[in-house]
């Protein structure tokens, strides 16, 4: 076992390492993989909070992501808002929408929530494609300007790929810290109790609906903000931001990493953000592979890597100690 101080130091070292990457290499491919990892880690972390910890299977995350993207893009281009205000507004709107669909469907059952969240994601794509006067239809909003971030005493023009690397990685670190603080606090314990046994949690004075809505709104906010930042990296927002590809990818990250395992999901996000790209699969084939992985995982490996590690740890802990002579 490693000592406690080393355990606490490792994440800090990891963050420092990630922030050192643009200083070591200016390679745009490496930076693009880093941006993709940062974006997916926030999406999968949010999904893990909702599904892994609270037990709500949500397909709506991609909708929140896209709503954040569209809101930020429209506010910055049409109203001339600064980036941080646009992205925050996108996150807030996503959280509000999340509360509406969560409140209406969770009254019935978790089945209904899963169905409604999927329908919601599909509806988002249809609205983005067909409500031309707001979203400009299938062409989307191309040529988003180079955004400027106004921090206290410093305005930051994001013109180089490395700037976006720092921005998205910085937000990912903040988001992961928030998620970590939530899941290791009383809130996280209550959410886990609701997932494991809702009736028992209720009998202990936990109100399931408010915790579920909290998890959903927080994850929607994070997804919305990261969507608002990510579209400026892409420099375009179009209906493909609601593509099912994002849902499938973040779902596979959570399943492989282990629902309800913070470090497992983070690790799976890192591996799966880089690996398929390095292996150069076509998108269709990658989705077929992801689907097959999902089926196999459900049949033989439902806990993911995180669940497997936890079970192994429990077994070791329960093993009788050999008698010392």
């Amino acid at each position, binding site marked *: 076992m490693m000592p406690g101080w080393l355990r606490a130091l490792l994440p800090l070292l990891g963050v420092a390492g990630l922030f050192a990457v643009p200083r070591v290499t200016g390679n745009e491919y490496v930076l693009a993989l880093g941006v993709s990892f940062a974006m997916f880690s926030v999406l999968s972390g949010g999904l893990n909070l909702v*599904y892994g910890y609270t*037990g709500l*299977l949500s397909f709506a995350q991609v909708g929140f992501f896209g709503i954040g993207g569209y809101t930020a893009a429209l506010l910055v281009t049409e109203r001339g808002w600064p980036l941080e205000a646009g992205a925050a507004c996108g996150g807030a709107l996503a959280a509000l929408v999340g509360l*509406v*669909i969560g409140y*209406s*469907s969770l*009254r*019935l*059952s*978790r*089945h*209904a929530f*899963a*169905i*409604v969240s*999927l*329908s*919601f994601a*599909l*509806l988002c794509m*249809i*609205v983005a*494609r*067909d*409500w031309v006067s707001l979203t400009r239809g299938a062409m989307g909003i191309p040529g988003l300007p180079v955004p400027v971030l106004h921090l206290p005493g410093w305005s930051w023009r994001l013109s180089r790929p490395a700037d976006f690397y720092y921005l998205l990685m910085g937000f990912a670190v903040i988001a992961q810290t928030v998620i970590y603080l939530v899941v290791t606090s009383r809130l996280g314990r209550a959410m886990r109790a609701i997932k494991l046994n809702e009736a028992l949690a209720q009998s202990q004075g936990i109100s399931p609906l408010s915790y579920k809505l909290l998890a959903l709104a927080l994850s929607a906010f994070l997804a919305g903000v990261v969507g608002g930042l990510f579209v400026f990296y892409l420099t375009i927002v179009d209906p493909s931001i609601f593509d*099912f590809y994002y849902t*499938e990818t973040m*779902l596979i990250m959570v*399943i492989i990493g282990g629902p309800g395992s913070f470090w497992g999901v983070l690790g799976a996000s890192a591996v799966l953000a880089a690996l398929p790209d390095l292996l150069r699969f*076509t998108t*269709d*084939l990658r*989705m*077929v592979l*992801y*689907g*097959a*992985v*999902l*089926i196999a*995982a*459900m*049949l033989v490996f*439902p806990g993911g890597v995180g669940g497997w590690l936890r079970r192994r740890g429990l077994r070791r802990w329960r093993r009788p100690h050999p008698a010392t002579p």
Partner: protein
Amino acid sequence: MDAGFYLQLLLNGVVIGVIYALVAMGLSLIFGVLEIVNFAHGEFYMLGAMLAYFLTMNMGQGYWATVVVVTAVAVCLGYVLYEALLASLEGGGFERSILLTLGLSMVLQNGAVFLFTTTPRMVQTSQSYVNLVVGDVRVSLMRVFALALGLLAFGALYLILYGTRIGRAMRGVAQNRDAALMVGIDPRAVSRLAVAIGIGLSGLAGAALAPVYAVHPLMGFSFVFKAFAIIIIGGLGNIAGAAVAAVALGMVESVVGGFLPLVMVDALVFGSMIAMLLLRPQGLFGRGVRV
């Protein structure tokens, strides 16, 4: 705008509603008996339509032969689906079943895109452009056939559920699983048949609609969106409710679609689902909320 125009829209709506009903009833039946929401349901509709396309256009089969073959293949696929994947899930939690069927849907849909590309294909036969004209209303023969097939399937499903022993057993399991087990109903046999019928109906719907709409690998995806709304509106697990909601939705959609842009129609479907959940969570004809 004369009465004939409205009548035309209503009639088109009934046809599409009956086909929605085929897909939604299968979904509802599988949910009622197995408590599994089959996210791959739309893909079997797509496979049915694709198979119908290849049978008519590449093998030169006639309409009725195609419909029979596609339905039979879909029923067999349902058996295989149950035995290979769903049977191992018994009591395994609803997330597992959703994720499993979602994975299946990804494999089928993206596999079809990979093999056949997303190009829409049209099924054209000698009867494709034949219209029936009654007064002001003209309906293509293919739509009439689709309507007839749908009504035939309604009747067959009704006979199975209410006229046979296994149908009664199926309703018994859907109403109260534990009690059904206690009186000696074999849940495996009942579940297997429910999945086979559900998938069969989906395949039949695909074959019936193939000559009316374009066939492409992504068609199941948008179709299942409506089927989900329908089973929520009709009450989860309520088969008759799903049928009524489907026909009503088809008619509303067709009439509204005659005046408003398409996006409003989809928003209307989603909005009515949310409204139903807020006002009457058990659905229009719900038998009480099940959690």
